[in-house]
């Protein structure tokens, strides 16, 4: 830095302002207190993030734990995670189509159809399991491609095309299973064990969680170093470390608690891996950026040179492929492919989970984690009511009410985002 010309060199020169801190009107959060303040401001302006679903989950857990102390027991929670994974995977696909402001109402039927397909190919026709699974996944992808085709080239609203898909694939599922009604998958086969029994060895679970926390720390640390080198503002190192430490302690505790009895289900591990991968794809890749842009303003996305049709195509294909995968996992969980699979509330639970988790129905806002959090809320309600021996009628009513609350929160926060310019 050059010396000032007037020679008053003993006064320390101010550093040049950071590249992104030149505007004097903006209050910039500094330190941890500042970060907390910034969080409050964000919430007030309608950018709620995961706050509603986490509060909801806390309330649900408290209420059910008071009513029945078994609720938060280690084995019940493990059970809950087994149950969450199947619909959770379907819900992850729903997040994708909601991001582009579309909907897939046929995920339940597609999942049932996929499970029937795997049952038939594997048990009745003797195909190797992996081949049967791959075939079902490919069919799932093709179904999504068909919806995208109808939407892109014929302008058919996805609401309608997937509604007819709901009926058509339910029909196909019933047709495939017409002779037997249901196909039992052999107990002891790897697929069924995966769906019902297998859990991560405790040492491995601890190690993986530690690895994840270290990974979070290292990536954040590297980013901060690069920002500093490029003359951008940085977070204090302490808050990076605290964040990683909180993840470490929180997750290790959950693993520890689950390891008291059954441990962490592998099927849930698969679900989490898919969620993390989807989160990466949405937040860190060009594809995810394009998906968000198309959900926010398709015309602007098109004018930026994005192939909007291809984005819709990918969203619908991912959604129905994940629906098929969820159906296969559900078949593994129940050790059967039945005519009831994928019917009833599967469809709406999958959609509700994404919305309850905070993915907007209006498109362009959402997160892979909303599928994870949302499905845990739904399964917690269902599990709590089952423990209380309450009928499914009450479960439907309560889940319906929770969904309504989630949609109201979505609409209200959208309105307050608009009024504070964060639409």
């Amino acid at each position, binding site marked *: 830095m050059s010396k000032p010309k007037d020679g008053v060199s003993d006064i320390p020169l101010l550093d040049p302002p950071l*590249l*992104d801190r030149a*505007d004097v*009107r*903006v209050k910039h959060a500094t330190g941890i207190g500042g970060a907390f303040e910034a969080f409050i401001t964000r919430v007030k302006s309608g950018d709620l993030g995961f706050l509603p679903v986490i509060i909801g989950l806390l309330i649900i857990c408290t209420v059910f734990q008071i009513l029945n102390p078994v609720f938060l027991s280690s084995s019940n929670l493990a059970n809950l995670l087994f149950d969450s994974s199947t619909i959770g995977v379907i819900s992850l696909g729903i997040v994708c189509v909601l991001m582009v402001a579309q909907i897939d109402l046929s995920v339940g039927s597609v999942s049932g159809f996929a499970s029937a397909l795997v049952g038939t190919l594997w048990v009745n026709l003797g195909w190797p399991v992996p081949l049967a699974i791959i075939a079902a996944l490919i069919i799932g992808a093709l179904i999504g491609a068909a919806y995208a085709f109808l939407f892109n080239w014929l302008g058919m609203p996805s609401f309608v095309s997937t509604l007819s898909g709901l009926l058509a694939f339910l029909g196909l599922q019933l047709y495939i299973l017409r002779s037997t009604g249901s196909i039992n998958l052999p107990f002891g086969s790897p697929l069924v064990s995966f769906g019902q029994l297998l859990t991560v060895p405790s040492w491995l679970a601890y190690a993986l969680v530690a690895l994840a926390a270290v990974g979070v720390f290292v990536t954040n640390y590297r*980013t901060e170093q*690069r*920002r500093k080198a*490029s*003359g*951008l503002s940085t977070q204090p190192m302490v808050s990076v470390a605290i964040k990683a430490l909180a993840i470490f302690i929180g997750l290790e505790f959950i693993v520890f608690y689950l390891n008291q009895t059954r441990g962490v289900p592998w099927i849930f591990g698969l679900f989490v891996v898919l969620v993390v991968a989807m989160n990466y794809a949405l937040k*860190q*890749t*060009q*594809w995810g*950026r*394009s998906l*968000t*842009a198309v*959900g*926010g*303003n398709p*015309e*602007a*996305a*098109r*004018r*930026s*040179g*994005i*192939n909007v049709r291809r984005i819709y195509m990918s969203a619908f294909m991912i959604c129905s492929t994940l629906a098929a995968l969820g159906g296969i996992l559900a078949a593994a969980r129940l050790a059967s492919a039945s005519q009831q699979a994928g019917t009833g509330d599967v469809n709406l639970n999958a959609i509700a989970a994404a919305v309850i988790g905070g993915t907007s129905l209006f498109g*362009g*806002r959402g997160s892979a984690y909303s599928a994870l959090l949302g499905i845990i809320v739904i399964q917690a309600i269902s599990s709590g009511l089952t423990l209380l021996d309450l009928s499914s009628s009450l479960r439907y009513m309560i889940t319906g009410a929770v969904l309504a609350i989630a949609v109201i929160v979505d609409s209200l926060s959208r309105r307050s*985002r*608009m009024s*504070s*310019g*964060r*639409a």
Partner: protein
Amino acid sequence: MLSLRGISKHFGAVSALSDIEFDVHAGEVVALVGDNGAGKSTLVKVLAGVHQPSAGEIFFDGKPVKLADPSTALNLGIATVFQDLALCENLDVVANIFLGREQNPWHLDEVGMEVRAWTLLNELSARIPSVREPIASLSGGQRQTVAIARSLLLEPKLIMLDEPTAALGVAQTAEVLDLIERVRARGLGVLMISHNMEDVRAVADRIVVLRLGRNNGILTPDASNEELVSAITGASENSVTRRAGRRAQREHVNEARP
């Protein structure tokens, strides 16, 4: 560099453009002026690949081109700032500037993009509080600056600006006019639309006038105000007849009312 021959565009029964012909050469600023609804934005959208022309040919760098979609135009080196800006309100400033052109598609280089975004914005003396806020929280002029910054990102050969200074402050307008001159000095072509005759005269090498979707003369910046206004409005050139014409029109409208 860019030549239009007989470009027409119909929207159903409306002929927004008929038989438009003009050229933009490298290192030249062409201003496109005309009344509201004259078809200026429609022409820009045709050249940006947003609309397909109903008839006519477009030549770019001497070769006939078919601008089937916006990415074709972008890849040829035609960058556009649209009148309605075409930004994604749910994305932040950096994401909007780089939309469709992100650095490192499989692992977005957020830091690199943020630095480049600030560099571009500072060149335009932008007053933007934070590039990590969604576009929805910016003022109209700030958004316009973001849209202009985005058009500069790719080092295009031809820049089309549809009313780029309509919402800008004094300093920012001056920066944009400076920028247009800098771009011209680098040998790029600029097509600028503006209702502000002062800005047009300040930077344009030629002024193309559109009226009701047709060519209505090509003027030089030293043309008199009357000439310009009459070409735009279509009234005859002296101001007395113009006023008379307006009065007559008013009476005509009054008669038309029940």
